[in-house]
């Protein structure tokens, strides 16, 4: 999927028993997982984005597409246990069991973040910020893009290189 493309709609099961997908509000779809050190290093920053922007109508969807057969720590049960152990997350954690959503989006790594505007058009894709190892960056690339979308502007930085562990494809 390229910047300016309309994202394919999806509905995926969440750890809380609901089914969720992008709606008619800006939505950040963050492909992530349980076991990747890059995803874990950026995780709190992405949770903060979910908290900080929820009052502005933004949704953040965490999507785990990894093959659980080869990586059991990414199973749906393991996802539920993680969220429960954390006392809940401010955003849903969705299971992409067939990996179809990750394929449709062209997700390459965990994390890999796709920001859709209220019409479902891709406005930003890439890493949350410049350095997984620097929490002070606060996912600023994503925040800058969100601010632009909320103001009806095109983000100055629409695409960055996703950084992280490769998505674990079934049979890969």
């Amino acid at each position, binding site marked *: 999927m390229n910047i300016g493309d309309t994202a394919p709609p999806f509905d995926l099961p969440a750890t809380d028993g609901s089914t969720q997908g992008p709606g008619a509000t800006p939505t950040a779809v963050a492909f992530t997982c349980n*076991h*990747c*050190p*890059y995803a*874990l*290093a950026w995780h709190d920053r992405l949770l903060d984005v979910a908290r900080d922007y929820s009052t502005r109508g933004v949704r953040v969807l965490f999507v785990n597409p990894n093959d659980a057969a*080869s*990586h*059991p*720590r990414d199973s749906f049960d393991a996802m539920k246990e993680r969220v429960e152990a954390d006392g809940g997350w401010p955003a849903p954690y969705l299971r992409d069991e067939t990996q179809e959503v990750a394929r449709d989006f062209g997700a390459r790594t965990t994390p890999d973040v796709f920001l859709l505007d209220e019409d479902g058009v891709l406005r930003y894709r890439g890493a949350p910020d410049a350095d*997984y*190892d620097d*929490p002070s960056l606060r996912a600023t690339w994503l925040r800058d893009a969100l601010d632009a979308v909320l103001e009806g502007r095109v983000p100055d930085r629409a695409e960055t290189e996703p950084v992280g*562990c490769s998505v674990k494809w079934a049979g890969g």
Partner: protein
Amino acid sequence: MREIKTGDDAERERFVGSPTIRIAGADVSPIQGEPVGLSCRIYRLRDGRISPTPDPADIRDAIRRSTE
């Protein structure tokens, strides 16, 4: 440098994730209870942060131990 390509490779080498750094056969940052397999490895730095690579101080200590 040794590439672990398959689950069998991982089993044979008792490989618990990439990257694994061993000096004189000893893991520079040994971890208990980690399942063997083709996975990304999570390291905890000495200041508590999560990292995809070991703390440099752990590598230095492992080198020091190997030469004692």
